């Protein structure tokens, strides 16, 4: 039976949520192609949470264990996946910082094309066909992958994990000898356990309407009230140095697809809308009723954010305390 590899990710010995999304996407292809899903787990030792992989559609869970694999090892991971994946039908990665680095390495080593940041997938005539946003989502591109294996990466937060009980039989994957041309030496934590805007279920973003960088405290408080929220920012305030560039949502920043996107004091320039239009629900708070953001907001409030946001924070807090 042909095999589809799902390349998972862990951090500090715990499986990352995006891994279940990768397995869910791989399962969908496998069901259409009559293939098995083999989930690949890198680590320097046992990784917790791998039992979830079988529950979400992995027929086998293959541990690739090496002293260097507690952190990302670009050359080690690439050598391992390329060796294992040579005869596979497809290899599915996450379009994360790691997956975006790893997938092209494997593609180059196997001499096949790669489709990145996929948001829909299926098969036609036995070939993998995917849809991916281009021009920051202003247009969608449908692409057929003609090579075997077909390589693709899925955008985080799009393929919600779907339960599909499979054996998840544990096994080991051979790690071939490799030369570590790049050595990852560590991870410097951002703010305590900060969620990334690309992965958070709720994103609260601020723009120039906040008037000063210290007023982002209002959004931090709202994000804390939601409990599962990341704080994003418009290009204008990132360029002004108010927020880290990693928080920027838009065409020259990140594309996000949270369940809820709250745009505060953001007018909604085309570059910004491109980065958040796939959010399931959009809330806008802005004093200018003609701001373009209101054209895409499911729920808009016209008003002074300095009054609206604290009230919203209080209401969300109250509700979550119930």
């Amino acid at each position, binding site marked *: 039976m042909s095999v589809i590899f799902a390349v998972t990710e862990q951090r500090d010995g715990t499986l990352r949520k995006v891994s279940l999304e990768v397995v869910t996407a791989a399962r969908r292809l496998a069901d259409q192609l009559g293939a098995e899903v083999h989930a690949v787990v890198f680590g320097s030792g046992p990784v917790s949470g791998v039992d979830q992989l079988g529950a979400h559609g992995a027929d086998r869970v293959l541990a690739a264990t090496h002293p260097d694999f507690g952190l990302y090892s670009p050359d080690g991971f690439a050598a391992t996946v390329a060796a294992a994946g040579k005869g596979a039908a497809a290899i599915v990665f996450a379009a994360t910082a790691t997956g*975006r680095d790893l997938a092209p390495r494997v593609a180059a080593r196997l001499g*096949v094309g790669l489709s990145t940041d996929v948001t829909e997938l299926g098969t036609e005539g036995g070939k993998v066909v995917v849809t991916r946003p281009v021009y920051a989502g202003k*247009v969608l591109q*449908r*692409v057929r992958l003609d090579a075997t294996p077909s390589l693709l990466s899925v955008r985080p937060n799009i393929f919600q994990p779907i339960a599909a009980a499979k054996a998840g039989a544990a096994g080991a994957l051979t790690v071939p000898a490799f030369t570590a041309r790049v050595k990852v*030496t560590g991870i410097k934590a951002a703010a305590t356990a900060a969620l990334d805007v690309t992965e958070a279920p709720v994103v609260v973003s601020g723009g120039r309407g906040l008037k000063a960088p210290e007023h982002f405290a209002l959004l931090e408080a709202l994000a804390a009230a939601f409990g599962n929220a990341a704080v994003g920012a418009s290009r204008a305030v990132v360029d002004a140095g108010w927020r880290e560039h990693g928080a920027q949502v838009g065409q020259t920043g990140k594309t996000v697809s949270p369940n*809820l996107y709250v745009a505060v004091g953001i007018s909604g320039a085309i570059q910004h809308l491109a980065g958040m239009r796939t959010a399931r629900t959009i809330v806008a708070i802005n004093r200018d009723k003609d701001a373009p953001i209101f054209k895409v907001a499911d729920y808009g*409030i016209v008003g002074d954010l300095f009054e609206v946001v604290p*009230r919203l924070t209080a*209401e969300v807090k109250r509700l979550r305390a119930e």
Partner: protein
Amino acid sequence: MRIAVCLKRVPDTTAKIAIGADGTSADEAGIKFVPNPYDEYAIEEALTLRQAAGDGETVVVSLGGDAAQETIRAALAMGIDRGVLLQAAGSADGLEVARALAAELKGGGFDLILFGKMAVDDYNHQVGVMVAELLELPCITAVSHLTIADGAVAAEREIEGGIELSGCALPAVLTCDKGLNSPRLPSLKGIMAAKKKPLDVKPVSLGAGTVTVLGLSYPAERKPGRIIGEGADAVPELVRLLREEAKVL
């Protein structure tokens, strides 16, 4: 220090994109094209490193149609020494583009080959890494902080919820992220000088590749926006809608 920068001509990020008559590519009519914004970080880094080294050369290489000459001139105006246009129509398969770039860069004696972390048109995030693999060079992607000393690279790159620290030896390939630097604007003197700088045009042919674009479409329109009220008094209604209608609370 010899540094190559790979540069792509892309539509300005403020441009509205219309699907062309062929149904598989964007209509270029009326669109303003610019150097890919992430590639500008690569150009700036090359100029800074070359200046700090005291000697060497900076080269910009672009793969594209004739119009990309204008994009290369923009890099020369910023201060890059010379340009190479690999004249080809481009490909949806990043590996084919990488093969053409790698063939040009191979044997060039570059200490560093810099890319933007991605192009804002196709969002492929792949050509820089593939070039490194084809040339068997170390590669660090999405670099937002960089130190080079004694032939070694120390880099920081943003990962979800943190900053990953990594290192490699020169020669190396790096792809550049926002935050690395602030790209300079070309000076008038630079623009004048750019007109006289060498720009080689070399026709190349790309392989057919294994990625076939079947078609482009517009994303589904969101349902029209709705303003539910004014001021803080509208908050209870918003919370009710988020809870009962959108079911996100």
